[in-house]
Protein backbone atom coordinates (compact mmCIF):
# COMPACT_ATOMS: atom_id res chain seq x y z
CA UNK A 1 0.00 0.00 0.00
CA UNK A 2 2.65 2.48 1.05
CA UNK A 3 4.80 1.50 -1.87
CA UNK A 4 1.90 2.14 -4.20
CA UNK A 5 1.32 5.62 -2.81
CA UNK A 6 4.97 6.47 -3.16
CA UNK A 7 4.91 5.26 -6.72
CA UNK A 8 2.08 7.60 -7.62
CA UNK A 9 3.69 10.49 -5.79
CA UNK A 10 6.96 9.94 -7.60
CA UNK A 11 5.18 9.82 -10.94
CA UNK A 12 3.35 13.04 -10.24
CA UNK A 13 6.55 14.74 -9.21
CA UNK A 14 8.41 13.84 -12.34
CA UNK A 15 5.47 15.10 -14.42
CA UNK A 16 5.62 18.39 -12.58
CA UNK A 17 9.29 18.91 -13.14
CA UNK A 18 9.38 18.10 -16.78
CA UNK A 19 9.06 21.35 -18.72
CA UNK A 20 8.22 19.45 -21.88
CA UNK A 21 5.19 17.85 -20.27
CA UNK A 22 4.22 21.12 -18.66
CA UNK A 23 4.14 22.83 -22.00
CA UNK A 24 2.59 19.91 -23.78
CA UNK A 25 -0.30 19.24 -21.41
CA UNK A 26 -3.34 18.91 -23.54
CA UNK A 27 -6.49 20.38 -22.11
CA UNK A 28 -10.10 19.50 -22.66
CA UNK A 29 -12.91 22.01 -22.41
CA UNK A 30 -15.46 21.00 -19.80
CA UNK A 31 -18.16 23.05 -21.49
CA UNK A 32 -19.27 24.41 -18.12
CA UNK A 33 -19.88 28.11 -18.71
CA UNK A 34 -17.12 30.29 -17.32
CA UNK A 35 -15.29 27.38 -15.72
CA UNK A 36 -12.93 26.78 -18.63
CA UNK A 37 -11.86 30.40 -18.39
CA UNK A 38 -10.99 29.96 -14.74
CA UNK A 39 -8.93 26.94 -15.82
CA UNK A 40 -7.40 28.92 -18.69
CA UNK A 41 -8.59 26.47 -21.27
CA UNK A 42 -10.07 23.51 -19.44
CA UNK A 43 -8.99 20.44 -17.51
CA UNK A 44 -5.72 18.67 -18.23
CA UNK A 45 -6.58 15.69 -20.41
CA UNK A 46 -6.24 12.25 -18.91
CA UNK A 47 -5.90 13.58 -15.36
CA UNK A 48 -7.92 13.70 -12.16
CA UNK A 49 -9.80 16.66 -10.85
CA UNK A 50 -11.38 16.74 -7.40
CA UNK A 51 -14.52 18.71 -6.60
CA UNK A 52 -15.17 19.04 -2.90
CA UNK A 53 -17.74 20.86 -0.85
CA UNK A 54 -20.40 20.19 1.73
CA UNK A 55 -23.91 18.94 0.97
CA UNK A 56 -25.89 20.99 -1.52
CA UNK A 57 -22.97 22.92 -2.96
CA UNK A 58 -23.53 21.58 -6.48
CA UNK A 59 -21.02 18.75 -6.79
CA UNK A 60 -23.39 16.33 -8.53
CA UNK A 61 -24.61 19.04 -10.91
CA UNK A 62 -20.98 19.78 -11.71
CA UNK A 63 -20.16 16.17 -12.55
CA UNK A 64 -23.41 15.69 -14.48
CA UNK A 65 -22.72 18.76 -16.58
CA UNK A 66 -19.09 17.74 -17.15
CA UNK A 67 -20.37 14.52 -18.72
CA UNK A 68 -23.33 16.08 -20.51
CA UNK A 69 -21.33 18.87 -22.20
CA UNK A 70 -18.64 16.35 -23.09
CA UNK A 71 -21.11 14.24 -24.99
CA UNK A 72 -23.19 16.96 -26.60
CA UNK A 73 -20.57 19.64 -27.26
CA UNK A 74 -17.31 17.74 -27.69
CA UNK A 75 -18.34 14.27 -28.81
CA UNK A 76 -16.67 12.67 -25.78
CA UNK A 77 -18.67 9.86 -24.24
CA UNK A 78 -18.97 9.48 -20.51
CA UNK A 79 -19.21 7.10 -17.58
CA UNK A 80 -21.01 8.12 -14.41
CA UNK A 81 -19.93 6.18 -11.33
CA UNK A 82 -22.32 7.01 -8.54
CA UNK A 83 -21.86 6.08 -4.92
CA UNK A 84 -24.59 8.18 -3.40
CA UNK A 85 -27.69 8.80 -5.49
CA UNK A 86 -29.01 6.00 -7.62
CA UNK A 87 -28.90 6.49 -11.40
CA UNK A 88 -32.69 6.83 -11.62
CA UNK A 89 -32.68 9.81 -9.28
CA UNK A 90 -29.79 11.47 -11.09
CA UNK A 91 -31.50 11.01 -14.46
CA UNK A 92 -34.66 12.53 -13.04
CA UNK A 93 -32.85 15.46 -11.40
CA UNK A 94 -30.85 16.51 -14.45
CA UNK A 95 -34.01 16.61 -16.56
CA UNK A 96 -34.63 19.91 -14.79
CA UNK A 97 -31.61 21.32 -16.63
CA UNK A 98 -32.90 19.98 -19.92
CA UNK A 99 -30.34 17.16 -20.03
CA UNK A 100 -31.80 13.95 -21.35
CA UNK A 101 -29.61 11.23 -19.86
CA UNK A 102 -32.07 8.47 -20.82
CA UNK A 103 -31.56 9.28 -24.47
CA UNK A 104 -27.77 9.43 -24.10
CA UNK A 105 -27.82 6.01 -22.42
CA UNK A 106 -29.94 4.57 -25.22
CA UNK A 107 -27.54 5.98 -27.80
CA UNK A 108 -24.62 4.39 -25.91
CA UNK A 109 -23.04 7.75 -25.23
CA UNK A 110 -23.36 7.50 -21.47
CA UNK A 111 -23.35 4.62 -19.05
CA UNK A 112 -23.80 4.41 -15.30
CA UNK A 113 -21.81 2.30 -12.90
CA UNK A 114 -24.28 2.00 -10.07
CA UNK A 115 -22.45 1.82 -6.76
CA UNK A 116 -25.21 3.54 -4.82
CA UNK A 117 -26.30 2.04 -1.49
CA UNK A 118 -27.54 -1.51 -1.85
CA UNK A 119 -30.80 -2.62 -0.28
CA UNK A 120 -29.53 -6.18 -0.02
CA UNK A 121 -28.32 -7.18 3.45
CA UNK A 122 -24.58 -7.42 3.23
CA UNK A 123 -22.24 -9.15 5.68
CA UNK A 124 -18.47 -8.90 5.64
CA UNK A 125 -16.69 -12.17 6.30
CA UNK A 126 -12.95 -12.25 5.81
CA UNK A 127 -10.67 -10.63 3.32
CA UNK A 128 -11.84 -8.83 0.22
CA UNK A 129 -10.83 -6.12 -2.19
CA UNK A 130 -12.72 -3.89 -4.63
CA UNK A 131 -11.57 -5.41 -7.88
CA UNK A 132 -15.22 -5.92 -8.80
CA UNK A 133 -15.74 -2.17 -8.85
CA UNK A 134 -12.55 -1.56 -10.82
CA UNK A 135 -13.59 -4.17 -13.41
CA UNK A 136 -17.03 -2.62 -13.75
CA UNK A 137 -15.57 0.84 -14.34
CA UNK A 138 -13.12 -0.52 -16.93
CA UNK A 139 -15.96 -2.37 -18.64
CA UNK A 140 -18.13 0.75 -18.71
CA UNK A 141 -15.33 2.89 -20.16
CA UNK A 142 -14.72 0.35 -22.93
CA UNK A 143 -18.42 -0.15 -23.53
CA UNK A 144 -19.08 3.45 -24.63
CA UNK A 145 -15.43 4.28 -25.48
CA UNK A 146 -15.62 6.95 -22.82
CA UNK A 147 -13.22 9.84 -22.61
CA UNK A 148 -14.76 11.35 -19.50
CA UNK A 149 -15.53 9.71 -16.19
CA UNK A 150 -17.35 11.21 -13.23
CA UNK A 151 -17.07 9.56 -9.84
CA UNK A 152 -19.63 11.03 -7.50
CA UNK A 153 -19.18 10.79 -3.73
CA UNK A 154 -16.28 8.38 -3.62
CA UNK A 155 -16.02 8.84 0.13
CA UNK A 156 -19.26 6.88 0.57
CA UNK A 157 -17.21 3.71 0.23
CA UNK A 158 -15.67 4.49 3.59
CA UNK A 159 -18.94 4.56 5.40
CA UNK A 160 -20.17 1.38 3.76
CA UNK A 161 -17.19 -0.89 4.29
CA UNK A 162 -15.13 -1.62 7.37
CA UNK A 163 -11.88 -2.44 5.60
CA UNK A 164 -10.50 1.06 5.22
CA UNK A 165 -7.23 -0.15 3.73
CA UNK A 166 -9.12 -1.88 0.94
CA UNK A 167 -11.01 1.36 0.28
CA UNK A 168 -7.79 3.39 0.13
CA UNK A 169 -6.30 0.85 -2.18
CA UNK A 170 -9.22 0.88 -4.57
CA UNK A 171 -9.08 4.65 -4.83
CA UNK A 172 -5.50 4.41 -6.01
CA UNK A 173 -6.33 1.46 -8.25
CA UNK A 174 -9.22 3.25 -9.92
CA UNK A 175 -6.99 6.24 -10.55
CA UNK A 176 -4.26 4.03 -11.97
CA UNK A 177 -6.65 2.24 -14.30
CA UNK A 178 -8.33 5.40 -15.50
CA UNK A 179 -4.99 7.07 -16.13
CA UNK A 180 -3.97 4.05 -18.15
CA UNK A 181 -7.18 4.34 -20.16
CA UNK A 182 -6.40 8.01 -20.77
CA UNK A 183 -9.77 9.31 -19.63
CA UNK A 184 -10.27 12.63 -17.86
CA UNK A 185 -11.92 12.16 -14.49
CA UNK A 186 -13.81 14.38 -12.11
CA UNK A 187 -14.19 12.98 -8.59
CA UNK A 188 -16.39 14.51 -5.96
CA UNK A 189 -15.93 14.13 -2.25
CA UNK A 190 -17.90 15.52 0.62
CA UNK A 191 -15.95 17.97 2.62
CA UNK A 192 -16.18 17.11 6.28
CA UNK A 193 -13.79 19.15 8.34
CA UNK A 194 -10.31 18.55 7.13
CA UNK A 195 -10.77 14.89 6.34
CA UNK A 196 -12.82 13.12 3.75
CA UNK A 197 -14.00 10.41 6.05
CA UNK A 198 -10.95 8.30 6.64
CA UNK A 199 -8.92 9.56 3.78
CA UNK A 200 -7.23 12.78 4.60
CA UNK A 201 -7.83 15.51 2.06
CA UNK A 202 -4.14 16.11 1.94
CA UNK A 203 -3.54 12.53 0.89
CA UNK A 204 -6.04 12.71 -1.94
CA UNK A 205 -4.92 16.12 -3.04
CA UNK A 206 -1.25 15.22 -2.92
CA UNK A 207 -1.20 11.87 -4.58
CA UNK A 208 -4.39 11.21 -6.43
CA UNK A 209 -5.65 14.34 -8.08
CA UNK A 210 -4.03 16.99 -10.21
CA UNK A 211 -6.46 19.73 -9.43
CA UNK A 212 -8.97 20.74 -6.79
CA UNK A 213 -12.04 22.97 -6.80
CA UNK A 214 -13.83 23.63 -3.57
CA UNK A 215 -17.50 24.64 -3.79
CA UNK A 216 -19.25 26.51 -1.01
CA UNK A 217 -22.49 28.20 -0.09
CA UNK A 218 -22.08 31.51 1.67
CA UNK A 219 -24.76 33.59 3.33
CA UNK A 220 -25.35 36.82 1.43
CA UNK A 221 -27.64 39.62 2.44
CA UNK A 222 -30.76 38.15 0.87
CA UNK A 223 -29.80 34.72 -0.35
CA UNK A 224 -26.95 32.25 -0.42
CA UNK A 225 -24.06 33.03 -2.69
CA UNK A 226 -22.25 30.14 -4.35
CA UNK A 227 -18.51 30.34 -4.53
CA UNK A 228 -15.82 28.23 -6.10
CA UNK A 229 -12.18 28.14 -5.15
CA UNK A 230 -9.79 26.47 -7.57
CA UNK A 231 -6.92 25.61 -5.32
CA UNK A 232 -4.50 23.93 -7.60
CA UNK A 233 -4.00 22.53 -11.02
CA UNK A 234 -0.76 20.68 -11.22
CA UNK A 235 1.51 21.52 -14.11
CA UNK A 236 -0.77 23.95 -15.91
CA UNK A 237 -1.86 27.53 -15.48
CA UNK A 238 -5.15 28.60 -13.97
CA UNK A 239 -6.63 31.70 -12.44
CA UNK A 240 -6.44 31.25 -8.69
CA UNK A 241 -8.81 32.82 -6.28
CA UNK A 242 -12.42 32.60 -5.29
CA UNK A 243 -15.03 33.09 -7.97
CA UNK A 244 -18.80 33.10 -7.79
CA UNK A 245 -21.08 30.76 -9.62
CA UNK A 246 -24.78 30.13 -10.07
CA UNK A 247 -26.82 27.04 -10.68
CA UNK A 248 -29.11 28.21 -13.46
CA UNK A 249 -31.94 26.50 -15.30
CA UNK A 250 -29.44 25.08 -17.76
CA UNK A 251 -26.51 24.22 -15.57
CA UNK A 252 -23.65 25.92 -13.83
CA UNK A 253 -22.47 29.37 -14.68
CA UNK A 254 -19.11 30.37 -13.25
CA UNK A 255 -18.11 34.03 -13.16
CA UNK A 256 -14.35 34.26 -13.55
CA UNK A 257 -12.58 37.40 -12.53
CA UNK A 258 -11.95 39.62 -15.51
CA UNK A 259 -8.34 40.55 -15.84
CA UNK A 260 -7.96 44.20 -16.63
CA UNK A 261 -4.93 45.90 -17.97
CA UNK A 262 -4.77 49.52 -16.92
CA UNK A 263 -1.90 50.15 -19.29
CA UNK A 264 -3.91 49.69 -22.45
CA UNK A 265 -6.17 52.51 -23.43
CA UNK A 266 -7.85 52.75 -26.77
CA UNK A 267 -9.46 56.09 -26.15
CA UNK A 268 -9.55 57.94 -29.44
CA UNK A 269 -10.08 61.64 -29.11
CA UNK A 270 -10.29 62.01 -32.85
CA UNK A 271 -13.15 59.53 -33.11
CA UNK A 272 -16.33 60.88 -31.64
CA UNK A 273 -19.43 58.90 -30.77
CA UNK A 274 -22.59 60.87 -31.37
CA UNK A 275 -25.88 60.80 -29.50
CA UNK A 276 -27.84 61.66 -32.58
CA UNK A 277 -29.24 64.60 -30.61
CA UNK A 278 -28.12 67.58 -32.60
CA UNK A 279 -27.48 70.14 -29.91
CA UNK A 280 -25.56 67.77 -27.65
CA UNK A 281 -23.27 66.47 -30.34
CA UNK A 282 -22.50 70.05 -31.24
CA UNK A 283 -21.95 71.04 -27.61
CA UNK A 284 -19.51 68.10 -27.36
CA UNK A 285 -17.67 69.19 -30.49
CA UNK A 286 -18.85 66.16 -32.40
CA UNK A 287 -19.61 63.64 -29.67
CA UNK A 288 -18.04 61.61 -26.88
CA UNK A 289 -14.44 60.53 -27.55
CA UNK A 290 -14.42 56.81 -28.36
CA UNK A 291 -13.56 54.75 -25.28
CA UNK A 292 -14.80 57.32 -22.81
CA UNK A 293 -17.07 56.52 -19.92
CA UNK A 294 -19.71 59.15 -19.40
CA UNK A 295 -21.91 59.63 -16.38
CA UNK A 296 -25.33 61.13 -16.96
CA UNK A 297 -26.79 62.20 -13.68
CA UNK A 298 -30.20 63.51 -12.98
CA UNK A 299 -33.21 63.18 -10.78
CA UNK A 300 -36.11 60.91 -11.61
CA UNK A 301 -37.82 61.81 -14.88
CA UNK A 302 -35.06 63.99 -16.29
CA UNK A 303 -34.66 61.64 -19.26
CA UNK A 304 -31.51 59.66 -18.43
CA UNK A 305 -32.91 56.46 -19.92
CA UNK A 306 -33.92 58.31 -23.03
CA UNK A 307 -30.42 59.72 -23.48
CA UNK A 308 -29.18 56.12 -23.30
CA UNK A 309 -31.71 55.04 -25.91
CA UNK A 310 -30.68 57.80 -28.32
CA UNK A 311 -27.06 56.77 -27.85
CA UNK A 312 -27.82 53.13 -28.68
CA UNK A 313 -30.00 53.91 -31.69
CA UNK A 314 -27.42 56.31 -33.15
CA UNK A 315 -24.72 53.65 -32.72
CA UNK A 316 -26.74 50.93 -34.39
CA UNK A 317 -27.57 53.26 -37.27
CA UNK A 318 -23.84 53.70 -37.80
CA UNK A 319 -23.18 49.95 -37.61
CA UNK A 320 -22.04 49.84 -34.00
CA UNK A 321 -23.53 47.11 -31.83
CA UNK A 322 -24.66 47.81 -28.32
CA UNK A 323 -25.26 46.28 -24.91
CA UNK A 324 -28.01 47.63 -22.66
CA UNK A 325 -27.58 46.78 -19.00
CA UNK A 326 -31.04 47.02 -17.55
CA UNK A 327 -30.81 47.32 -13.81
CA UNK A 328 -33.90 49.42 -13.24
CA UNK A 329 -36.78 48.39 -15.47
CA UNK A 330 -37.76 45.04 -16.92
CA UNK A 331 -36.50 44.62 -20.49
CA UNK A 332 -40.01 44.41 -21.92
CA UNK A 333 -40.87 47.74 -20.39
CA UNK A 334 -37.73 49.32 -21.81
CA UNK A 335 -38.64 48.03 -25.26
CA UNK A 336 -42.16 49.42 -24.95
CA UNK A 337 -40.87 52.79 -23.84
CA UNK A 338 -38.41 52.84 -26.72
CA UNK A 339 -41.25 52.06 -29.16
CA UNK A 340 -43.09 55.17 -27.95
CA UNK A 341 -40.18 57.23 -29.26
CA UNK A 342 -40.02 55.26 -32.50
CA UNK A 343 -37.05 53.07 -31.55
CA UNK A 344 -37.48 49.38 -32.42
CA UNK A 345 -35.30 47.61 -29.85
CA UNK A 346 -37.00 44.27 -30.43
CA UNK A 347 -35.88 44.33 -34.05
CA UNK A 348 -32.32 45.31 -33.13
CA UNK A 349 -32.23 42.48 -30.62
CA UNK A 350 -33.45 39.96 -33.20
CA UNK A 351 -30.85 41.18 -35.69
CA UNK A 352 -28.13 40.60 -33.09
CA UNK A 353 -27.27 44.28 -32.94
CA UNK A 354 -28.38 44.77 -29.35
CA UNK A 355 -28.14 42.60 -26.26
CA UNK A 356 -29.88 43.23 -22.99
CA UNK A 357 -28.20 42.18 -19.77
CA UNK A 358 -30.67 42.09 -16.92
CA UNK A 359 -29.23 40.42 -13.83
CA UNK A 360 -31.06 40.03 -10.57
CA UNK A 361 -29.91 42.74 -8.22
CA UNK A 362 -30.21 40.64 -5.10
CA UNK A 363 -26.74 39.91 -3.79
CA UNK A 364 -25.21 40.93 -7.08
CA UNK A 365 -21.46 41.06 -7.05
CA UNK A 366 -19.19 43.08 -9.29
CA UNK A 367 -17.43 39.95 -10.56
CA UNK A 368 -20.67 38.43 -11.71
CA UNK A 369 -22.07 41.58 -13.27
CA UNK A 370 -18.81 42.43 -14.95
CA UNK A 371 -18.55 38.93 -16.38
CA UNK A 372 -22.06 39.16 -17.80
CA UNK A 373 -21.33 42.51 -19.38
CA UNK A 374 -18.00 41.41 -20.82
CA UNK A 375 -19.58 38.25 -22.16
CA UNK A 376 -22.39 40.15 -23.84
CA UNK A 377 -20.05 42.79 -25.26
CA UNK A 378 -17.64 40.19 -26.64
CA UNK A 379 -20.44 38.12 -28.07
CA UNK A 380 -21.58 40.79 -30.51
CA UNK A 381 -18.48 42.96 -30.60
CA UNK A 382 -20.30 45.88 -28.99
CA UNK A 383 -18.92 49.38 -29.33
CA UNK A 384 -21.51 51.08 -27.16
CA UNK A 385 -22.76 50.18 -23.70
CA UNK A 386 -25.47 51.77 -21.60
CA UNK A 387 -25.79 51.03 -17.89
CA UNK A 388 -29.22 52.04 -16.63
CA UNK A 389 -28.49 52.79 -13.89
CA UNK A 390 -25.37 52.66 -11.81
CA UNK A 391 -27.23 54.13 -8.85
CA UNK A 392 -29.55 51.13 -8.72
CA UNK A 393 -26.52 49.04 -7.85
CA UNK A 394 -25.97 51.25 -4.87
CA UNK A 395 -29.55 51.19 -3.79
CA UNK A 396 -29.64 47.40 -4.22
CA UNK A 397 -27.29 45.40 -2.11
CA UNK A 398 -23.94 46.31 -3.56
CA UNK A 399 -21.84 48.23 -1.10
CA UNK A 400 -20.65 51.62 -2.26
CA UNK A 401 -17.03 50.54 -2.38
CA UNK A 402 -17.96 47.66 -4.67
CA UNK A 403 -19.75 50.05 -6.98
CA UNK A 404 -16.58 52.08 -7.26
CA UNK A 405 -14.56 48.94 -7.86
CA UNK A 406 -17.07 47.81 -10.44
CA UNK A 407 -16.78 51.13 -12.25
CA UNK A 408 -13.03 50.90 -12.15
CA UNK A 409 -13.04 47.38 -13.63
CA UNK A 410 -15.66 48.09 -16.27
CA UNK A 411 -13.97 51.27 -17.41
CA UNK A 412 -10.72 49.34 -17.79
CA UNK A 413 -12.41 46.68 -19.85
CA UNK A 414 -14.21 49.22 -22.02
CA UNK A 415 -11.06 51.23 -22.59
CA UNK A 416 -9.04 48.24 -23.68
CA UNK A 417 -11.75 47.46 -26.21
CA UNK A 418 -12.53 50.95 -27.43
CA UNK A 419 -16.09 50.72 -26.12
CA UNK A 420 -17.87 53.94 -25.27
CA UNK A 421 -20.12 53.73 -22.24
CA UNK A 422 -22.95 55.74 -20.75
CA UNK A 423 -23.72 55.33 -17.09
CA UNK A 424 -26.97 56.67 -15.79
CA UNK A 425 -27.02 57.95 -12.27
CA UNK A 426 -30.11 58.83 -10.32
CA UNK A 427 -29.00 61.85 -8.37
CA UNK A 428 -30.66 63.42 -5.41
CA UNK A 429 -30.41 66.91 -6.85
CA UNK A 430 -33.29 69.06 -5.75
CA UNK A 431 -35.55 71.48 -7.53
CA UNK A 432 -34.68 74.49 -5.51
CA UNK A 433 -31.99 76.00 -7.69
CA UNK A 434 -31.83 79.66 -7.06
CA UNK A 435 -31.53 82.14 -9.82
CA UNK A 436 -27.87 82.33 -10.85
CA UNK A 437 -26.98 79.20 -8.91
CA UNK A 438 -28.46 76.53 -11.07
CA UNK A 439 -25.83 73.88 -10.39
CA UNK A 440 -25.71 74.48 -6.66
CA UNK A 441 -28.09 71.64 -5.99
CA UNK A 442 -25.85 68.94 -7.51
CA UNK A 443 -25.59 65.71 -5.57
CA UNK A 444 -22.26 65.23 -3.85
CA UNK A 445 -22.48 61.42 -3.99
CA UNK A 446 -22.57 61.65 -7.72
CA UNK A 447 -19.62 64.02 -7.70
CA UNK A 448 -17.66 61.40 -5.78
CA UNK A 449 -18.09 58.94 -8.61
CA UNK A 450 -16.88 61.37 -11.19
CA UNK A 451 -13.19 60.80 -10.53
CA UNK A 452 -13.74 57.38 -12.09
CA UNK A 453 -15.45 58.58 -15.21
CA UNK A 454 -14.22 60.62 -18.12
CA UNK A 455 -17.19 62.83 -18.47
CA UNK A 456 -20.26 64.06 -16.71
CA UNK A 457 -23.48 65.51 -18.00
CA UNK A 458 -25.77 66.84 -15.32
CA UNK A 459 -29.51 66.96 -15.90
CA UNK A 460 -31.45 69.26 -13.59
CA UNK A 461 -34.93 70.52 -12.93
CA UNK A 462 -35.66 74.12 -12.21
CA UNK A 463 -38.95 75.48 -11.14
CA UNK A 464 -39.78 78.77 -12.82
CA UNK A 465 -43.15 80.49 -13.17
CA UNK A 466 -45.22 77.51 -11.96
CA UNK A 467 -43.48 75.24 -14.46
CA UNK A 468 -40.75 72.63 -14.25
CA UNK A 469 -38.02 73.16 -16.79
CA UNK A 470 -35.25 70.76 -17.70
CA UNK A 471 -31.72 71.99 -18.01
CA UNK A 472 -28.47 70.31 -18.90
CA UNK A 473 -24.80 71.05 -18.47
CA UNK A 474 -21.67 69.26 -19.58
CA UNK A 475 -19.64 69.50 -16.42
CA UNK A 476 -16.68 67.53 -17.53
CA UNK A 477 -15.29 65.77 -20.58
CA UNK A 478 -11.69 64.66 -20.26
CA UNK A 479 -9.35 65.72 -23.00
CA UNK A 480 -11.71 67.72 -25.10
CA UNK A 481 -13.33 71.01 -25.48
CA UNK A 482 -17.02 71.26 -24.74
CA UNK A 483 -19.57 73.95 -24.33
CA UNK A 484 -19.96 75.35 -20.84
CA UNK A 485 -23.43 76.63 -21.52
CA UNK A 486 -26.45 75.56 -19.54
CA UNK A 487 -28.95 74.29 -22.09
CA UNK A 488 -32.64 73.91 -21.84
CA UNK A 489 -34.11 70.73 -23.28
CA UNK A 490 -37.51 69.22 -23.82
CA UNK A 491 -38.82 65.70 -24.29
CA UNK A 492 -41.44 64.93 -26.93
CA UNK A 493 -42.50 61.84 -28.88
CA UNK A 494 -39.33 61.93 -30.95
CA UNK A 495 -37.12 61.98 -27.90
CA UNK A 496 -34.88 64.67 -26.58
CA UNK A 497 -34.61 68.09 -28.15
CA UNK A 498 -31.86 70.33 -27.00
CA UNK A 499 -32.82 73.93 -27.09
CA UNK A 500 -30.87 77.11 -26.74
CA UNK A 501 -28.83 78.31 -23.86
CA UNK A 502 -31.03 78.61 -20.84
CA UNK A 503 -31.89 82.21 -20.10
CA UNK A 504 -33.42 83.23 -16.83
Amino acid at each position, binding site marked *: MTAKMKGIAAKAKSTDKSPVVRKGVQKILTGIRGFDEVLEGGLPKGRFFLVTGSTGTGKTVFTSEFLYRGITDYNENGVFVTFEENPGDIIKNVKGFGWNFDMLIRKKRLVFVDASPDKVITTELGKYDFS*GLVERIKFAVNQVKAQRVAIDALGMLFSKFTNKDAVREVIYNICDELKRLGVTTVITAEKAGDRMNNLSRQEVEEYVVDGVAELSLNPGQQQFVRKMFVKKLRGVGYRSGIVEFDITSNGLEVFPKIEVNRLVSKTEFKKREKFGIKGIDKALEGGIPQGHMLLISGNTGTGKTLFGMHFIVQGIKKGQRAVYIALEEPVEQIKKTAREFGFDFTKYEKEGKLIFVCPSLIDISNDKLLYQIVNAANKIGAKRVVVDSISSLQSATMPEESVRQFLYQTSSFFKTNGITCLLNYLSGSNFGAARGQLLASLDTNMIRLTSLVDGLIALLYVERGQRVKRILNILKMRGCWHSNDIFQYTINNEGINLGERYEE
Partner: protein
Amino acid sequence: MPQKYILKLYVVGSSVASERALINLKELISQESETVFELEMIDVTKYPQLAEDDKILAIPTLIMKLPPPVRKIIGDLSDKEKVLLGLNLIPQNK
Protein backbone atom coordinates in the same frame (compact mmCIF):
# COMPACT_ATOMS: atom_id res chain seq x y z
CA MET B 1 -38.37 -31.84 0.76
CA PRO B 2 -34.84 -30.47 0.99
CA GLN B 3 -34.33 -26.72 1.00
CA LYS B 4 -32.92 -25.36 -2.28
CA TYR B 5 -30.18 -22.74 -2.30
CA ILE B 6 -29.15 -20.71 -5.33
CA LEU B 7 -25.75 -19.15 -4.77
CA LYS B 8 -23.58 -16.99 -6.99
CA LEU B 9 -19.95 -16.41 -6.21
CA TYR B 10 -18.39 -13.40 -7.89
CA VAL B 11 -14.63 -13.53 -8.37
CA VAL B 12 -12.04 -11.66 -10.42
CA GLY B 13 -9.63 -13.91 -12.29
CA SER B 14 -7.92 -16.20 -9.83
CA SER B 15 -7.12 -14.09 -6.84
CA VAL B 16 -6.04 -15.70 -3.58
CA ALA B 17 -9.13 -14.50 -1.72
CA SER B 18 -11.41 -15.78 -4.48
CA GLU B 19 -9.75 -19.22 -4.48
CA ARG B 20 -10.03 -19.40 -0.74
CA ALA B 21 -13.69 -18.39 -0.80
CA LEU B 22 -14.42 -21.14 -3.30
CA ILE B 23 -12.60 -23.79 -1.25
CA ASN B 24 -14.37 -22.68 1.93
CA LEU B 25 -17.73 -22.66 0.23
CA LYS B 26 -17.29 -26.11 -1.35
CA GLU B 27 -16.27 -27.57 1.97
CA LEU B 28 -19.31 -26.07 3.63
CA ILE B 29 -21.67 -27.32 0.94
CA SER B 30 -20.28 -30.85 1.13
CA GLN B 31 -21.12 -30.91 4.85
CA GLU B 32 -24.73 -29.84 4.36
CA SER B 33 -26.29 -33.06 3.16
CA GLU B 34 -29.85 -31.93 3.93
CA THR B 35 -29.72 -29.04 1.47
CA VAL B 36 -29.58 -28.79 -2.32
CA PHE B 37 -27.15 -26.19 -3.56
CA GLU B 38 -26.88 -24.61 -6.95
CA LEU B 39 -23.62 -22.71 -7.11
CA GLU B 40 -22.54 -20.54 -9.99
CA MET B 41 -19.13 -18.95 -10.10
CA ILE B 42 -18.91 -15.73 -12.11
CA ASP B 43 -15.66 -14.12 -13.17
CA VAL B 44 -16.29 -10.37 -13.34
CA THR B 45 -13.58 -9.91 -15.96
CA LYS B 46 -15.58 -12.19 -18.27
CA TYR B 47 -19.12 -11.17 -17.32
CA PRO B 48 -18.94 -7.55 -16.17
CA GLN B 49 -22.57 -6.86 -17.04
CA LEU B 50 -23.72 -9.50 -14.53
CA ALA B 51 -21.60 -7.77 -11.89
CA GLU B 52 -23.18 -4.48 -12.85
CA ASP B 53 -26.68 -5.94 -12.52
CA ASP B 54 -25.88 -7.41 -9.13
CA LYS B 55 -24.08 -4.20 -8.04
CA ILE B 56 -20.88 -6.01 -7.14
CA LEU B 57 -18.16 -3.87 -5.59
CA ALA B 58 -16.15 -6.18 -3.34
CA ILE B 59 -14.51 -9.40 -4.44
CA PRO B 60 -15.23 -12.13 -3.54
CA THR B 61 -18.97 -11.62 -3.09
CA LEU B 62 -21.35 -14.48 -2.47
CA ILE B 63 -24.98 -13.77 -3.31
CA MET B 64 -27.72 -15.94 -1.91
CA LYS B 65 -30.51 -15.55 -4.50
CA LEU B 66 -32.72 -18.21 -2.91
CA PRO B 67 -34.23 -18.69 -0.42
CA PRO B 68 -35.38 -15.11 0.15
CA PRO B 69 -34.43 -12.57 1.24
CA VAL B 70 -31.47 -11.98 -1.07
CA ARG B 71 -28.24 -11.63 0.87
CA LYS B 72 -24.65 -10.74 0.11
CA ILE B 73 -21.63 -12.05 1.94
CA ILE B 74 -18.35 -10.44 1.01
CA GLY B 75 -14.91 -11.76 1.87
CA ASP B 76 -13.08 -15.07 1.68
CA LEU B 77 -15.68 -16.86 3.87
CA SER B 78 -12.95 -17.93 6.29
CA ASP B 79 -15.22 -17.96 9.35
CA LYS B 80 -17.40 -20.97 8.65
CA GLU B 81 -19.74 -20.47 11.60
CA LYS B 82 -20.58 -16.98 10.47
CA VAL B 83 -21.11 -18.07 6.89
CA LEU B 84 -23.63 -20.64 8.09
CA LEU B 85 -25.31 -17.97 10.14
CA GLY B 86 -25.30 -15.60 7.20
CA LEU B 87 -26.92 -18.21 4.98
CA ASN B 88 -29.44 -19.20 7.65
CA LEU B 89 -27.85 -22.64 7.82
CA ILE B 90 -27.27 -23.01 11.53
CA PRO B 91 -25.91 -26.58 11.99
CA GLN B 92 -28.46 -28.87 13.58
CA ASN B 93 -26.06 -30.22 16.18
CA LYS B 94 -25.50 -26.80 17.69
